[in-house]
Structures are given as structure tokens and as C-alpha cells.
């Protein structure tokens, strides 16, 4: 009993730390990536007493991003605008960050790990209705953006809030539809089950990943996910050039950091969801619970901890890849106009999602049951 509790606590803390750190890494990715695309050097300040320079290493801005900036932002004055709604103003950043963090709970980051007599599912909280839980948590996420802007008592911030909440609930539909199609294919709402169902291969070489069943669903989830995390080309709620920073214009210090962390965590969440639903989650091609089964028929036996570790690493690589993809998209595309955004959501993606759902349903009936 107690040991289970401890294991659960460790898993939870591990995932939260992982997400927060990954968010920080993404910030660095973003700086360096944008610089790469724009043919600049990017973050290269704040070396550690010039040690790196003396050793002749290139300054990658790591200390800048991971130590100097957080220090700066957390020591700034925590400013509350006059006539703001103090209570909601303070609450909003937590409302933004908290739902994103809790929505990682049912996402599996590895297969079973066997330690002694304990079988540990590598997922914080195995839920039979995990997908509903994620959708519910995402639904809660609206309020951070919505109330933050409203409470600031700043008209640009409020405009950002209005845009954010309208955009979020519009694209949530598409997101839900594409996820439901996957659920129909696998016949379960449990994400770990969905991952397990993606093991094995077709024709001996093609991994049985969800992307093969649901290519359109993948695209829909990717687009809707980017819109959910309010990134370019859907960054109208923040729209730096028109709204300063949208709903968190008035925020500073730790609260602003919370909003930014929430944004990056949301990128990680979208990537994790995409990897889990469409790219096998922690599945490594040809790796089964007892080792590699290569297409040629060779068998490379591996022990359970190694398999679990490989799965976790594979999951991490997939997540980081999709984070990178989102950053690439962010620095490549221009911003939509707001009516274009709504048109795309309601008249483009939503009908596509419905068609996808319909085709999936018919196909499942034709084949005679889910996978």
C-alpha cells in the first residue's frame, strides 16, 4: 500500500519535472531554432565567468536560457495593475498552468517496468477513460487565458482573452473529433491500451502505428493542437505586433513565467498526444517485451529494464521531434487573420474531422470491429 503510494508519487513528480524541464529546453530550442531559420546566432550571452570562451567552446546560450533568464524573471517586481481584479489576477496564471500539468497524468511514457515483485505501469495515473480526462483538463485550460485578460482590466488583454477562448473552444472540437476517430479504431479510451495495440508490424516491416489507420486524423490533431497551444500561425490571442502579449500583457515576474511555462507545456502535451495516438507512444519498431524481433527473423533478447528504458527513450525522442516540428512551423509560417482562423476551424477542419469520423466508422463496420 505505502510502497504503491510512493511509486505513484515518484512517477508524478518525475513527469512534472520532466515536463517543466522540457519546457525550458524548448525555450532554448525556440531561440536557437529561430536564429537558425533567420540566419542569426541566437542566444549567446552570459557565459560562466568566461570559462567556455577560454576553452574555445562556442557559446550556445545555455546558461543564458537556463539560469540567467529564470533568475531575471523571478526576481522582477510582481506588478498588479491598478483597478485589476486582484483575486482573479493572481489566480489566472495557476489556472493556466495547472490544467496542462495535470493532463499529462494518463499519458504513458513507457511499458511495464518490473522491479522485484512490483509491476510498475509507466504512466502516472492509468485511467480507463484517459482521453476524456485529457479533454476535460484541456477544457479547463481556457479559463487561465480567459480570466487573466479579463482580470487585468486592460482592453488589449481582454481582446486577447476573447480571442483565446473563442479559438480554444473552436479547435477543441476538431481535436476531439480526430481523437474520437482513433478511439474508434482501437476501441478503448485508455491511452496505455492504445499504445499496446500499436505493437507489431505489417508485412514484417511496417510498424503498426496509428498514423497508418488515421493519416487525416494525425494532420487534424497536429493543426488543432498548434491552435490549442496558441502558436503561430494561430497566435492571434498573443499577437505580439498588435496586442503586445495578449491576455498576459499586464503580467510580470513569476506570473508571466507561469503563463509562458503553460504555453510550452502545452506544446509538449500536444506532441505527447500525437506520439501516443499516432506514432506508437513508447513503441520502438521491432522491439517487443522480450527484445528485438528484426524483419529478417533475428531475435535480439533484452531484459525488461532495458526494454522499458528503450521505450521511454523512444517516447522522449518522438515528443522532442514533434516539439521541434511545432517550433519549425512557428518560425516558418505567417499569422492568420482572425476570420481566416475561424473559417479554417469551422468550415475546414471541422467538416474534415466529421468526414474522417464517418469514413472510420464505415470502415470499422466493413472490417467488422475495431483493431
Amino acid at each position, binding site marked *: 500500500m505505502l510502497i504503491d503510494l510512493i511509486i505513484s508519487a515518484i512517477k508524478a513528480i518525475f513527469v512534472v519535472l520532466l515536463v517543466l524541464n522540457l519546457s525550458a529546453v524548448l525555450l532554448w530550442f525556440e531561440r536557437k531554432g529561430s536564429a537558425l531559420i533567420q540566419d542569426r546566432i541566437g542566444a549567446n550571452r552570459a557565459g560562466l565567468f568566461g570559462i567556455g570562451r577560454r576553452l574555445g567552446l562556442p557559446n550556445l546560450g545555455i546558461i543564458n536560457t537556463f539560469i540567467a533568464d529564470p533568475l531575471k524573471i523571478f526576481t522582477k517586481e510582481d506588478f498588479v495593475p491598478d483597478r485589476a481584479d486582484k483575486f482573479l489576477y493572481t489566480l489566472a496564471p495557476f489556472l493556466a498552468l495547472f490544467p496542462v500539468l495535470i493532463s499529462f497524468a494518463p499519458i504513458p511514457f513507457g511499458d511495464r517496468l518490473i522491479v522485484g515483485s512490483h509491476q510498475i505501469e509507466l504512466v502516472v495515473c492509468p485511467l480507463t477513460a484517459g482521453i476524456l480526462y485529457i479533454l476535460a483538463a484541456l477544457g479547463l485550460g481556457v479559463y487561465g487565458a480567459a480570466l487573466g485578460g479579463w482580470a487585468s482590466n486592460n482592453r488589449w488583454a481582454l481582446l486577447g*482573452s476573447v480571442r483565446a477562448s473563442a479559438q480554444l473552444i473552436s479547435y477543441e472540437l476538431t481535436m476531439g473529433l480526430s481523437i474520437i476517430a482513433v478511439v474508434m479504431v482501437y476501441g478503448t479510451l485508455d491511452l496505455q491500451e492504445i499504445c499496446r495495440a500499436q505493437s507489431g508490424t505489417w508485412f514484417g516491416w511496417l510498424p503498426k502505428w496509428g498514423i497508418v489507420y488515421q493519416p487525416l486524423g494525425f494532420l487534424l490533431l497536429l493543426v488543432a493542437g498548434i491552435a490549442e497551444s496558441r502558436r503561430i500561425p494561430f497566435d492571434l490571442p498573443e499577437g505580439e505586433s498588435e496586442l503586445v502579449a495578449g491576455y498576459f500583457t499586464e503580467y510580470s515576474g513569476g506570473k508571466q513565467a507561469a503563463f509562458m511555462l503553460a504555453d510550452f507545456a502545452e506544446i509538449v502535451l500536444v506532441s505527447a498526444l500525437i506520439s501516443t495516438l499516432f506514432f506508437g507512444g513508447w513503441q520502438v519498431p521491432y522491439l517487443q517485451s522480450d527484445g528485438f524481433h528484426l524483419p529478417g527473423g533475428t531475435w535480439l533478447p533484452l531484459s525488461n529494464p532495458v526494454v522499458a528504458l528503450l521505450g521511454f527513450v523512444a517516447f522522449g525522442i518522438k515528443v522532442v521531434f514533434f516539439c521541434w516540428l511545432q517550433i519549425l512551423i512557428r518560425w516558418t509560417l505567417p499569422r492568420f487573420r482572425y476570420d481566416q482562423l475561424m473559417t479554417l476551424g469551422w468550415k475546414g477542419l471541422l467538416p474534415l474531422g466529421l468526414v474522417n469520423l464517418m469514413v472510420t466508422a464505415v470502415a470499422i463496420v466493413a472490417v467488422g470491429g475495431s483493431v
Partner: protein
Amino acid sequence: MPLGIFAFFATLAVISALGVILQRSPVHSLLALIVTLLCVAALMIGLDALAVGLLQAIVYVGAIVVLFLFVIWLLNLERDPEESGRLGIKLLAAVGAAALVGELTAFLTRTHMSQQTVNSDYGSMAQLAGLIFGNYLIAFEVTSLLLLVAVVGVVAVARRWPSPRLANRPPTLSAKPQT
């Protein structure tokens, strides 16, 4: 659900429900409503209704309450003024509340219900789907009609009609100048 956890959520639900009806600022009422809804969702999950509890969070908190928020923004509602007098209504409310609290005591004292043991798939999506597409098929189809009604109805009532034909029209027939 253990009694302690129940007590926590129940207390929070009641306090925030009181917050909904007692606070002057509509946005604060709304926030209190969200808390109540989430507490109710948690209690539902405690009653083994996992899917429905989560749906409650998705549908109510994620969609319906956001609609309220939009309308509050749109109408630019600030704090309500302090309400004066209206003793009659308040008296009525007091009587109604007393009656309902009487009902409450009737529940607590005169009924004896215990939780039965249920299968592990109780409240799962599969079980719900089986019922919805079985015994409740007609009800399910009717809800699709209801949603259509909502779509058509909202468009009919809330859209500002752009057409000049209507813009030039007097609001009622009787308001027309009698020629």
C-alpha cells in the same frame, strides 16, 4: 468514496454554490459555478460514474460556462448594484428554502440506501454506449434534434439581420404610421 473526501467536496460544493448566488460580480459567480461543477464531477467519479463525471467537466466547464463568460464580456457586466428591499420575494425565497431543507431532512432520515456492489465495467463508456444505442435510442436521436434546435434557434434570435428589407421595417405592425 470515503467519507472524508466526500465531506471535502460536498463542503466545497455548497460553499461555492452559495458563492454563485451571493456574489455581486457575475464573473466571480461564474468562477464559483465552475468550482461547484467540478466538485459535482468529482463526486460523480466517486460514485463510479467515471465517464459521466469527466463528461460533466468537458461539457459544463469546458463549453457551457465559457458561453456564459462570453455573454458577460459581450454585455460588459460589472458588479451588480446592492439590491434593495423586495421583501416579498425574499420571504418567498426563505419559505422555499425552508421547504427544500425540510425535504433534505426527509431524505436523510427516512431513506435507507446503501451502495450495491457493481461490476468493474459499471459506468464505463462501453456500458453507457450499449444503453444509449439500445434502450435509449429514441432519446439519443431526439437529442440530435435538440442540438439542431439550438443551432437554428440561436441564429434566429441572436443574429443581427443585415438585410435592408428588415432594417427599414418598424418594430411592430401596430407601430406603422396609419395612412
